C-alpha cells in the first residue's frame, strides 16, 4: 500500500491585481478627477469644472438608472425612455411657470416648495405615462429585442409629437428659482448653486436606490429577478408586478431628471429627451446594462470627462464620450460592472 500523497493546501493571498479588480471602476472616478487636476493648472477652474461635471453626471444618472434596471430585470430595452425626460421637463416647467410668484420670490423656503411641487408633478405625470407606456407599447413585445427597439422608438416619436401638440413647437425658456441663481465662491472658485443642489439630489437618489435595493425585501426580489427571473417566479413572487413597479419608478426618475436637466439648461424642447438618450445610452453601456452602480460610475465619468475636455479643447468634447465608451468596451466588453445572469 502506498502512502497517500502529501497534501499541503496553501492559503495563497489573491494577488493585488485580483483584489483590485472589482474596485477598478470605483477608482476610475477619483483617477479621472486627479487627471483633470494635472491637466488643468488653475485650481479654481478645476474645482468649478469638477463640480459641474459631478452635477451633470448626477443628472444623467437619475435619467439613466431606470433604463438600466428595466433592462436588467426584464430584458426590455426601452428606446422611448427619453420621452419621459421630455414629459418630466415640460410638466415640471409648466408647474414652475404657474408658480411664478413663488419661484420669483427671494425666499429659499418658497423656492424649494415650488421646486418640490414641480418635481412631484413631473414624477407623477411621468410615472403615469410610464405605466401606460408599459401596458400599451412594451408589454406586447416581451422577449423580442428587435420589436422592442422599433416599437419603443415609435412610442418616442408619438410622445414627442404629442408634446408639440400640447405645448407648441417653440422651445420654452425657464429661469431658475430666485435663490438658486448665481454662484457661491469657495477657495477662489465660483460654484453655481444649482449645480451643488443637483449633486446633492443625485447623491440622495443614489443612496436611496441602493438602500432600497440592498436592504428591503422588494430590493431583494428585484436583485434576484435580475439574476434569475424564472427562479424568483418559481418561488411564488409575481415578477410581472415588480417589473411594472420598477418601470414606473424608472419613468418617474427620468421625469425628475428631466426637470433638473431642463432647469440646468434653462431651456426645454420636445426633442431634449432624444438628445439626452445619447448620453444615457453611453452611460448604461459603459456601466454594464442592468447595473445601477455601474450606471452611477459611468454617469460621473461621462459628466467629468465632458466638462474637462470642453474646457481644454472645446471641439473634442463631442467625441470624448465616444472615445471613453470605446476605451471602456475594449477593457471590459460587457461594461464596467457586468451583470451576471444565471442562465
Amino acid at each position, binding site marked *: 500500500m502506498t502512502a497517500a500523497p502529501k497534501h499541503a493546501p496553501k492559503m495563497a493571498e489573491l494577488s493585488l491585481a485580483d483584489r483590485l479588480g472589482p474596485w477598478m471602476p470605483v477608482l476610475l472616478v477619483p483617477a479621472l478627477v486627479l487627471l483633470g487636476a494635472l491637466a488643468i493648472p488653475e485650481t479654481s477652474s478645476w474645482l468649478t469644472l469638477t463640480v459641474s461635471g459631478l452635477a451633470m453626471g448626477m443628472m444623467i444618472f437619475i435619467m439613466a438608472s431606470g433604463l438600466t434596471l428595466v433592462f436588467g430585470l426584464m430584458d426590455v*430595452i426601452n*428606446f422611448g425612455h427619453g420621452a419621459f425626460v421630455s414629459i418630466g421637463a415640460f410638466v415640471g416647467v409648466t408647474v414652475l411657470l404657474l408658480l411664478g410668484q413663488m419661484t420669483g420670490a427671494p425666499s429659499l423656503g418658497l423656492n424649494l416648495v415650488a421646486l418640490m411641487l414641480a418635481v412631484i408633478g413631473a414624477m407623477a405625470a411621468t410615472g403615469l405615462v410610464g405605466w401606460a407606456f408599459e401596458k400599451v*407599447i412594451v408589454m*406586447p*413585445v416581451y422577449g423580442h*429585442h*428587435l*420589436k422592442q*427597439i*422599433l*416599437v419603443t*422608438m*415609435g*412610442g418616442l*416619436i*408619438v410622445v414627442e*409629437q*404629442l408634446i*408639440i*401638440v400640447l405645448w407648441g*413647437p417653440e422651445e420654452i425658456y425657464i429661469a431658475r428659482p430666485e435663490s438658486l441663481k448665481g454662484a457661491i465662491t469657495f477657495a477662489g472658485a465660483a460654484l453655481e448653486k444649482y449645480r451643488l443642489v443637483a449633486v446633492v439630489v443625485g447623491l440622495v437618489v443614489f443612496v436611496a436606490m441602493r438602500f432600497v435595493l440592498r436592504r428591503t425585501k422588494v430590493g431583494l426580489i428585484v436583485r434576484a429577478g435580475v439574476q434569475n427571473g424564472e427562479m424568483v417566479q418559481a418561488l411564488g413572487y409575481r415578477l410581472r408586478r415588480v417589473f411594472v413597479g420598477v418601470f414606473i419608478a424608472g419613468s418617474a426618475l427620468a421625469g425628475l431628471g428631466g426637470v433638473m436637466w431642463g432647469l440646468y439648461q434653462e431651456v426645454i424642447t420636445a426633442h431634449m429627451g*432624444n*438628445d439626452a*438618450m*445619447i448620453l444615457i*445610452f*453611453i452611460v*448604461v*453601456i459603459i456601466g454594464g446594462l442592468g447595473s445601477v452602480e455601474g450606471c452611477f460610475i459611468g454617469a460621473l465619468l461621462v459628466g467629468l470627462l465632458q466638462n474637462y475636455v470642453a474646457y481644454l479643447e472645446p*471641439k473634442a468634447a*463631442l*467625441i470624448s*464620450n*465616444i472615445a471613453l*465608451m*470605446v476605451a471602456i*468596451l*475594449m477593457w471590459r*466588453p*460587457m461594461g464596467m460592472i457586468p451583470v451576471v445572469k444565471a442562465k
Partner: protein
Amino acid sequence: MTLFRSILSGDMPRSTVLAVLLALILVGLALAPFLFPGVRTVDTAARICVFIVLVASYDLLLGYGGIVSFAHTMFFGIGAYGVALSLTHLGRGFGAIFLGAGAGAVVAAALALLIGLFSLRVRAIFFAMITLAVASAVAVLVSQLSGLTGGEDGLTFKLPRELGPAFKFGKEALGGELFGVKLNGKLLAYYFVFAGALVLFLMLLRVVNSPFGRVLLAIRENDFRAEAIGYRVVYYRVAATCLSAAAAALAGSLYAIWLRYVGPETTLSMELMIDILLMVVIGGMGTMYGAVIGATLFVLAQNYLQTLMGAASGLVEGLPVLPELLSADRWLLWLGVLFILSVYFFPTGIVGRLRGGK
C-alpha cells in the same frame, strides 16, 4: 424567363398583386420624365429611386441580419459628402464622381467595420445604442467642421456639364425634344440616378439570395443555433453591416448627384433615419421588394399626404385640439402611430401580406 429569373436572383415576387405593383413602379420610374413631366414629379421619382436603394440596404441589416442600426443616415451622408467634396476639390468630371462615390463607400464600410467589431461581438442590442451615439456625434461634427463640410449650410457643387440643364443633345436627329420632353442634361442626370439605383438594388437582391443571405437569415432566426452549426455569427453580422453601409453610401452619392447639394439636414438628420425605419417596416422587413413598396409609398405620402392633412385640419377648424392634431406639421405623429401598429399587427409589412401573410 430564366434570364428574368436570374436577373432577380431567383427571388420572384410570388404574388400577382405584388408583381403588378412592382412592374408599375419600375415602368413608372423608368419613364417618369416622359409620363409625368414636371420639375416636382421628376424630383419625386428621383427621390424614390434613391430611397429604394437606401431602404433596401437598411433592410439587409434589419430584415435579414436582425440588427437595428441608427447610423444608416451617417453612411448615407458619408457617400453624399464624398461626392460633394471630390466634385468641389477635383473639378467637375465623371472621374471625380466615381472617385468620390468609391471613397465614400470605402470609408463607410471601414467605419461600419469598426463599430461592428466593437459592439456586435458582445450583443446585437449594443449595436443599436452605439450607432445612435456615434451617428449623433458625427452629425454634430459635420455641422461644426464648417471649413470642410460647409457646416449647417452644406455644400453646393457643380456636376459635369453633361448632367446639367444647360447641356442639350439630339438637336439634329430629334429636334431637341422627344414626346414633348426637352432632351437636356437634367434628363441624363435622372437616368444616371435611375440606372445607378437599379443596379444597386439588383446587387442587393443578389446578396440576400446568396448563401451568405441564407446564413444571415439563419442567424436572425436563431443566432445560438447558427453558431453551433459552425458559422461565426459575429463575422457574418459585421460583413452584413459593412455591405449595407457601403450600399447606403452609394445611395448617398446618387442623392448628392441628383440634388447637386449636400447638407446635414438632407443627409444626416435623425428625421431621415426615422423615415427609413418607417419605410422598411411598412414595406415589409426581410424582403427586398418591401423596400421598393415602402419607399415609393412613403415618398409619395410625404409629398402629397401633407396637403391632404392640411385640408382635413381645415375641416375640423374651431374644435379643440383636433386641428392641432391634424395639422400638416404633425404628420410624423400619425406615422409614428402607424409604425407601432404595423410592428404589432403586420410585422411582415405590405409585402408579407401580399405574399399570403407568412
